[in-house]
Every structure is written in C-alpha cells, then in structure tokens.
C-alpha cells in the first residue's frame, strides 16, 4: 500500500491547498513542513560523505545538511533514522508509468507502431502515476524518473521527468518534456501489422528518414520567418517538436547499441548541431574517444540487461566503468523490459556496476547527481544541499548490498514509503 493511496482524499486536498498557500509547485506538497533524517553516513553527493549527519527538510526542501552537532532541529520535528542516507535516487531512463506491469494492451502506452516518426507524442498524456511499478521502484529509493516513450520506434515520442508520487500526471511531473526518443539499429525497423512492407526496413533507411525529417523541420523553421504571412506554414505538431530539437531546447535521446549505430547518432548530431544523449550503448566502449570528443553523455543500459546474439551480444558489466574512466558523463537506468521482470530497479543496476569497476561514489552518482545532470534536473534533485527538493532514501546498510533494505523514502519532505524493502 502506498502512503499516497492511503491518504484520504480530504487529507490530500488539504495538503494541496497547503501547498498552494506556500506558492510551492504542486508536486512539492509536503503535508508536514519539517522532517529531520539522521544517518550514520549521509552521502550528500554535493561533497564528501558526512559521518553521523542530519538532513533537515522544511516545507519540502532541504534546509540544512551537516554533522549532527551542527544542525539545529526545531522542536516537534519528525525524525527518521537510518544507517545510510542518500539523495532520493534518480532513474535516468525508464518507461514506468507508460508501460504498465500487467503487460496487457490496456496498460501499454509506451510505443505506437503505426508511424515511425512521432516526436509530437507527449509523455504526460500517457503517464499513469497510479501504476504499480512506480510504487515498486520508489520502494527501492527511486524518487525521480526520466520516463516516456520507449525505444523501438525511429522517433517514438517525448520523454518527461516525474517524481514517483502524485495522483495525476500534473502532480507528478517536474519537467513535462525532457527529450525526444530516437532509436537506431535493429530495433528501429518498422513493427506491427505489415511491418515487412513498411519503412524503415534497414539501418540506412532509418538514418535517411531521420535526416529527412530534420531537414523538413529546418525548412519549417525557415518558412515561419517569411515576411509574407500567407507563405508561412500551418502549425504542425511534429515539426514544432523537431524545431525544439533543432534549437537545442530538447535533446535527442538516441537509443542504440552497436558501435556503428552509435556513430550514426554522433554523425547526425554533428550535421544538425543537435544536443544528444546516448542511451543503452552496449558497444559504447568501442567509441570512447569519439563520444568523449563529442561531449555526449551516455545513459548506460541496465547492467543486468540480457545479452544474446544480436544488438546486445557484446554488452559488458563493465561498460559504465569503462566510459567513466574515459571521462564520459555516465548515468544508469532501469531501461525498458517487454516481459518479466516488467521493470528493473536502478538501485540494483548501480549495485552491479559498483561491483564491476565503478567506485561506490561513482555508482551512486550514476543514479543521483550525475543522472540528474544528464536529464537536466540537477538544480532540484540528485544531491542533498540547501534549497534542493527534500528527496531522500534511507537504508539499513550499504545501499548496494543485496541484503540491505531501503527502509524509508521521502519525497518533497513527505514520507512515502516506510516498509523496509
């Protein structure tokens, strides 16, 4: 049972009214203004870890972080304790909320296969904050997710960033549009009925279609500035979305695994001067120099992603470590799963990366501050520092050890999970 679901509707409305009173974003409705979290070790990710530290949260935001002796905790403050305290975890790429746990047609909204080019699809229109997998990942400390349209379409749609709370998408969202999801490689091939007669049918065709659409958007932008109003194009949602991509406002999230496809992504980014983030990147370790030179971050596939003959046959447990050592910004993710388990858990993927070449701090950063930077929300989440959102995960031991439990999760100062998991 989630805390938010247990909240009676009246209480929720009161909380919303309270939040509105504070002129605070709706997602930051803290039912109770103040909470202090004390940990034997507090990993702030904004500096060195603090031994016997306290995180003081007021009105949903971090007020102060420091050794217990330095933090004055107001009387009546709700107190939580744990062995290890970290920022609420940030899953840099998932599809929870769009791809539901039952895996039935009615809860699968992550991919429309009718058209390969659909940058106009908004994630917020399909996001179900009541989806059980959101509560599931939150139970393992995840408080912020970058979710949206799934890999599997050449341009499958937009992504968004949400907190793992809220009764509606509007309450949950902290960034309605984060990126535009692109897939290159085998998985970009047309799907659905009659797929063999549809494009793209090859890797080259996929790249040609993507370039063609970006050129179309360039023309759309050019014509919008024509002096003669009659010659300006009608508003086109698809080209509007790509205009934002061309303007660098929205990055392309390019999911690709083979080195050749990753190189295609870099080539397109260079040609159109786009901001891109590489996603998955099973063979990214073959291209570290080029990725580094391009200044492109990589959201590495789940460490435990399945390998098998095909796109992912060369993946390695050590990819995140290899990229990190090369100086490439790296985050980890739960990714997309089409069967069982219906989602992975970012905490577990980081744990295995920590056992395969990443240091503890690097692995934790890959699901906190580094992830927040790559998805563009580091001003709000990813570390525990004054002014940031009061999002905290509490553990009864090393968060990466299999037998450790996440004992409580706090979002915007509100305790949302307190059953050890």
């Amino acid at each position, binding site marked *: 049972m989630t805390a938010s679901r247990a909240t009676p509707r009246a209480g929720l409305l009161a909380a919303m009214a309270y939040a509105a009173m504070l002129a605070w974003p709706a997602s930051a409705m803290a039912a109770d203004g103040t909470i202090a979290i004390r940990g034997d070790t507090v990993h702030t990710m904004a500096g060195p870890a603090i031994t016997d530290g306290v995180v003081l949260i007021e009105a949903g935001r971090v007020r102060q972080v420091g050794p217990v002796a330095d933090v004055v905790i107001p009387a009546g403050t709700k107190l939580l304790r744990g062995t290890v305290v970290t920022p609420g975890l940030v899953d840099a790429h998932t599809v929870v909320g769009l791809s*539901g*746990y*039952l*895996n*039935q*047609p009615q809860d699968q909204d992550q991919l429309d296969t009718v058209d390969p080019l659909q940058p106009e699809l908004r994630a917020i229109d399909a996001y179900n904050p009541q989806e*059980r*997998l959101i509560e*599931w*990942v939150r139970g393992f400390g995840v408080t912020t997710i970058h979710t949206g349209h799934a890999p599997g379409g050449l341009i499958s749609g937009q992504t968004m960033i949400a907190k793992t709370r809220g009764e509606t998408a509007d309450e949950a969202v902290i960034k309605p549009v984060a990126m535009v999801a692109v897939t290159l490689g085998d998985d970009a091939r047309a799907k659905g009925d009659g797929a063999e007669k549809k494009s793209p049918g090859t890797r080259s065709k996929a790249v040609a279609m993507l370039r063609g659409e970006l050129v179309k958007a360039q023309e759309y932008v050019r014509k919008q500035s024509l002096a003669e109003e009659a010659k300006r194009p009608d508003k086109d949602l698809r080209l509007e979305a790509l205009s934002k991509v061309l303007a660098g406002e929205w990055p392309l999230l390019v999911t690709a695994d083979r080195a050749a496809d990753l190189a295609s992504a870099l080539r397109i980014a260079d040609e159109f001067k786009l901001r891109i983030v590489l996603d998955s990147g099973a*063979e990214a*370790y*073959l291209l570290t120099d080029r990725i580094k030179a391009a200044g492109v971050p990589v959201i590495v596939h789940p460490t*435990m992603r*399945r*390998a*098998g*003959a*095909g796109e*992912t*046959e*060369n*993946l*390695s*447990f*050590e990819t995140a470590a290899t990229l990190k050592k090369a100086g490439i910004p790296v985050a980890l993710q739960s990714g997309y*799963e*089409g*069967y*069982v*388990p*219906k*989602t*992975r*858990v970012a905490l*577990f993927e980081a*744990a*295995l990366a*920590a*056992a*395969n070449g990443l240091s503890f701090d690097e692995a934790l950063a890959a699901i906190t501050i580094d992830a927040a930077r790559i998805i563009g929300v580091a001003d709000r989440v990813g570390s525990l520092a004054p002014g940031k959102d009061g999002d905290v995960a509490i553990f009864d031991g090393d968060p*990466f*050890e*299999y*037998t*450790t*439990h996440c004992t409580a999760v706090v979002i915007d100062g509100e305790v949302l999970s307190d059953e050890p*998991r």
Partner: protein
Amino acid sequence: MNALRAGFLLAVIVSLLCGRPAFAQERPIAFLGAEVIPIAGPAIPAGAVVVQGGRIVAVGPAATTPIPPDAEKIDSSGKVIMPGLVDTHSHVGGGRGGDSSGPVQPDVRILDSINVRDAGFRKCRAGGLTTLNIMPGSGHLASGQTVYVKLRPANTIEDILYRDTTGTILGGLKMANGTNSQQEPPFPGTRGKSAAIVRQKFLKAIAYRDKIAQAAGDREKLPDRDLELESLVDVLEGRKIVHHHTHRADDIITVLRLRDEFGFKAVLHHASEAWKVAHELAKAGVGCSVIVLDSPGGKIEMMDFSLVTGAVLEKAGVACAFHTDDPVTDSRLFLRTAALGVRAGMSREKALEALTLAGARMLDLEGRIGSLEPGKDADLVVLSGDPLSVHTKVLQTFVEGKKVFDRDDPEDRLFAVGGYGASRDQDAESCCMSTRAVESKR
C-alpha cells in the same frame, strides 16, 4: 597417434569400470584454508576439501582433516568454497521442445536440440553452476522431456548428460498450466480444458501400462510402442519427475489435484503465488523451484509475484530451491537470487541450500550432488568472499574435480564479465522470451 588412441581407450575402459567419466582427475587436490560451506552442515571457518577421482574424499577443518601426501595443495585462505550450484530450471543452449502441432508432446526430448557450444554454458560455469535441468518451454501442457546436465566442457551433448547406473539418461517431464499453454486449437482455451486434456492423456498412459503388464512379456499381447505414452508411464512410475510451470495459486492447487489423482512426483516451478498457499503446499509435501525477479508483472499471472516467497515457504516448512530460468535471469548472477531471498526474510542457510542441495533433491540427484560430503561429486565453486555479497566474484568452478572456469583466464573472464564476442552464438530468444511467445501468451 596410436599411443594417444590406446591411452584414450584405456581411459574410457577405466572410466567405465569405475562408473566415472573419463573426465575425472586422479591426483588428489586439497583446498586448504577457505571458509567451507558444505550445506550438509555448518560452515567451517578454516576448512579443507579433498577431492580425488572426481569425488569428494574429505571435508573438515584444515587442522584436523587428513591430507593425502601426494595431494596437490591449493591455498584457498581468504576464499569461500561451496558446492557447485544446481539450477533446477534453465533454458541455456537454445533448445526447443514441442512444436505447434499439439499441446501434449511428452515424446519430445530437449536433449535433441541443445547446442553445447552456446556461450550460455560458459556463462553458467562463470556463475558457479555445475548442474542444470534444461527445460523446454511453457507453451504446452507437456512440452517435452527435460535433461539434467553436468557442466563439463562438452563437444557433444553426450559429454554432459547425467545417467543412472544402467546408462539411462536422466531428466524429467516439463508440464505447464495457466495462460502460457492456452492457445488456438488444438491447444486448450481454458484452464478446465487444460486439466481435462492432461487427465485424458494420463488415463491413456495407465491403460497402456496395464496392457504391458497384462502381456507379461508375451510379444503377441504387447501393445505397439508409443513414445508419448512411454514417457508418461515413466512419470506414472516415478522414474521421471514432473517439472511443472505454474504461477497462480489456483493453478498450483490444480497441479496437486492431478498429482494426487495419478500419483506422479512433481516439483512446482516459478510458483509465483506459492506464498498464498504455503500451508497447503506443506501439507502436500511438494517442493517449489522459485524464480526471483526484480519486479512483479510482465504478465497477469505474475501480478502478485513477491520477493517473500522463499521466506514464506521456509517458514511453512516447504522445500524451496531457486532457479535462473536463464535467459529470464542471468546464470552468472544466480547467487544474487539467494541474496534477494535473504533480503526478503529467508535464512542464510536455507537460501544457500536453495541454490544447491534443495535443487539436487528436486532432480533426485541428492545422492551425487548438492553438498560437500565425502562420496559426492567434486563439484565446487571458489568464491572471493561472502556468497551473498554483490562484490563477491566466482573465482573458479570445478566439476568432478576439474577446473572448468577460472576468472584469471582472459577467455573465461570475457564470459564472466561480457564484452566483445561474449555472446555471439548465444540464444537469448529462448522458448519463453521471444516477442511472438509473449504476444501469444497474453
């Protein structure tokens, strides 16, 4: 060449005489100083394991265990040694069982379709696995015969088969109920129909068995051989265990109902809702081979999947083994399954037993494998530390006293960690993972 051939023949003869494979080593090896987790008893802090001729000779404290003078001594201090892991449910090797011709195909043997060069086998050894029950899929009521394999290096499937003293190849029968085996006709469309088809087939097998018995060896009266019914008679006679895919609590109980009607031996596989009927399972004396996944869902039958299953079964006194269902979970991370069981409340002892001896019992192989005890096969795994820690690495895997995985070997390491070329020939779209299968299971 002749000398080699003669030597090979001699080795074969010796191995036949000993009832042991030619693979088995002869000079004793003594692993000294490791924490030894025998499963059959409490952990030994500074232990010794002595193996010879492919079998375990002695297990005990290093200080008091007699070490044969000619033994190769291996300093294992700082390491942990436990039995080779037993995976009661794997799809490694790209095998396929029954086809789309019908829902009951007990004549089909998975061993006839396994590629022993599949990289999945290398990864199993890298995960410390030494015995697998390789299963056909769950898209049939009976998808075929499973095969128990010992993870020796193999040139052909024959090299890794388990056989009994008469030479009979060992394995069980894969059955399934619930939604996976419901498809367009001639497959069943409902749960009731599924059970009816299975009952009808077993009744036929009983009649067939009775006819053979009545013939009392009279060739005039013997019925024609029928491979499907022969396989089911093996099940009825207890020579083959039914490895039964089942998720939902009511489906689990249906398996028990059929088991009681026909008197076969069954192990419940996956058993996602076993936690709801743990007391019934305890009363029935049936064991569960459980999968641990990172989330519930993926299909409706998995909606109430829970990490607590192992703990609930332990508390209720139900035998519990774990399995990988590889490729559903990665064989290299099989230890993690037990660790997550402990995370959700299982005892450390029972969780480790669930990776080894409990699984061996569910394959009727507990006399040979599953624990470190004198006389058992020398299948063991050398770990860098606590089996339940994420940081622990499988350093070496031994099968019948011979090293089959060494993390220090660059080629072996490639399969342990992944990287370029690690999975080129590996079949990941196994029975239960292909998109087509998923769609048809909805």
